[in-house]
């Protein structure tokens, strides 16, 4: 592992010059783990069938409201900068994605996951699991209270650091709207160096993964607020069906 950040950044720049696309490039060698794990064949275009046109249903029996607050799960205060992340989930036609499951996971303030596979020598926080769930409300809104995650090193290349991020897992109204992605923080200098973020070659598309600081969400002597809205892909449901909901 002697590849430098400079070499990786050069590889990223060369690929992006030829690939003005929005979606992540599945074949993206600067992210070394993708080499043997990206499909090489064209995706087969298909019309979704019955089971793919509806998402699984989640409800109050699945998720307790307290699961949306990652700062109260262990009976003590986690260490770090307390934040709230708030936003709206809509589909490609702007319709709210209602009562659907949003799951998040993240590193702690020191950049370490509460996961046995994470051996980064930063402290674990006994009061922070970094795991949360909630359901969107009737207008598509979600809210999490958590701790700002730290950046952390990884072994993709020499001196590789992941930008601070929160992993998001989302369900839409169709099974085919399933999305797992990562929310980034504004002004993070590591974003431009990161092969995972830069697998999205269109800067506007990457911008859609970056939250904005929102002072109206911040609370006096308590926490800082970030706003992050999420657009899923288009639903196959018609407007008629949606308006009956």
């Amino acid at each position: 592992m002697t590849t430098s950040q400079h070499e990786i950044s050069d590889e990223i720049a060369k690929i992006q010059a030829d690939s003005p696309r929005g979606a992540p490039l599945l074949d993206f060698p600067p992210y070394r783990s993708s080499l043997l794990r990206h499909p090489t064949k064209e995706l087969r275009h298909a019309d979704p069938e019955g089971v793919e046109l509806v998402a699984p249903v989640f409800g109050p029996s699945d998720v307790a409201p307290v699961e949306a607050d990652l700062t109260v799960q262990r009976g003590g205060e986690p260490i770090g900068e307390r934040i709230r992340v708030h936003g709206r989930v809509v589909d490609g036609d702007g319709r709210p994605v209602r009562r659907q499951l949003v799951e998040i996971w993240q590193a702690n303030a020191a950049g370490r996951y509460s996961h046995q596979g994470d051996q980064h020598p930063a402290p674990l926080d006994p009061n922070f699991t970094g795991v949360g769930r909630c359901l969107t409300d009737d207008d598509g809104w979600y809210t999490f209270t958590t701790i700002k995650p730290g950046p952390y090193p990884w072994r993709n290349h020499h001196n590789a650091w992941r930008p601070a991020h929160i992993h998001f897992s989302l369900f839409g109204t169709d099974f085919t709207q399933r999305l797992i992605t990562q929310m980034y923080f504004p002004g993070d200098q590591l974003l431009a160096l990161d092969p995972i973020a830069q697998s999205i070659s269109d800067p506007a598309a990457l911008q859609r993964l970056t939250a904005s600081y929102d002072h109206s969400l911040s609370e006096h002597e308590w926490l800082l607020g970030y706003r992050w809205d999420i657009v899923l892909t288009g639903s196959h449901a018609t407007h008629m069906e949606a308006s009956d909901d």
Partner: protein
Amino acid sequence: MTDAAPGQTIGPFFHHALAYPGDSELVPFGAAGSVVLHGHVYDGAGTPVPDAMIEIRQADAEGVVPAVEGSLRRRGAAFTGWGRCCTDTSGRYWFSTVEPGGATPFFAVTVFARGLLDRLFTRIYLPDGADTVDGLVAEREADGRLRFDIHLQGENETVFFSFPRHRS
């Protein structure tokens, strides 16, 4: 149509967040009428992928797609038609479920993995169903289990789908 948020890899550290007790048991293991759907996830070198996650969505035995909650806290109650399985250290996934009925019985599948920059969609068809797609039919094993391996890359690369109104 508004531009959608791009996907990103699930990364290596998802297990403690996304796995939960009973996630891959749509019906209890060994229940009457149940079937085991299992297989391995492989990379382009044929090496099992221990940090993948598979989700399935399916109709019930009568072909009805369920619209009931309870997938995260099943408590042996309703069949919800959805399940999740993180691959184990040998790259294996398994579900305990029922065989879907109806006109086009298949399991709708989403594939996530470290190293895979966005999720993939595929289908697993039943071996005795009509209207299947080549390469996407489960093998019926002698003991009745259904086996389907997922190859992210390589000679036996799985057929993955994109759908209209969705980015590739």
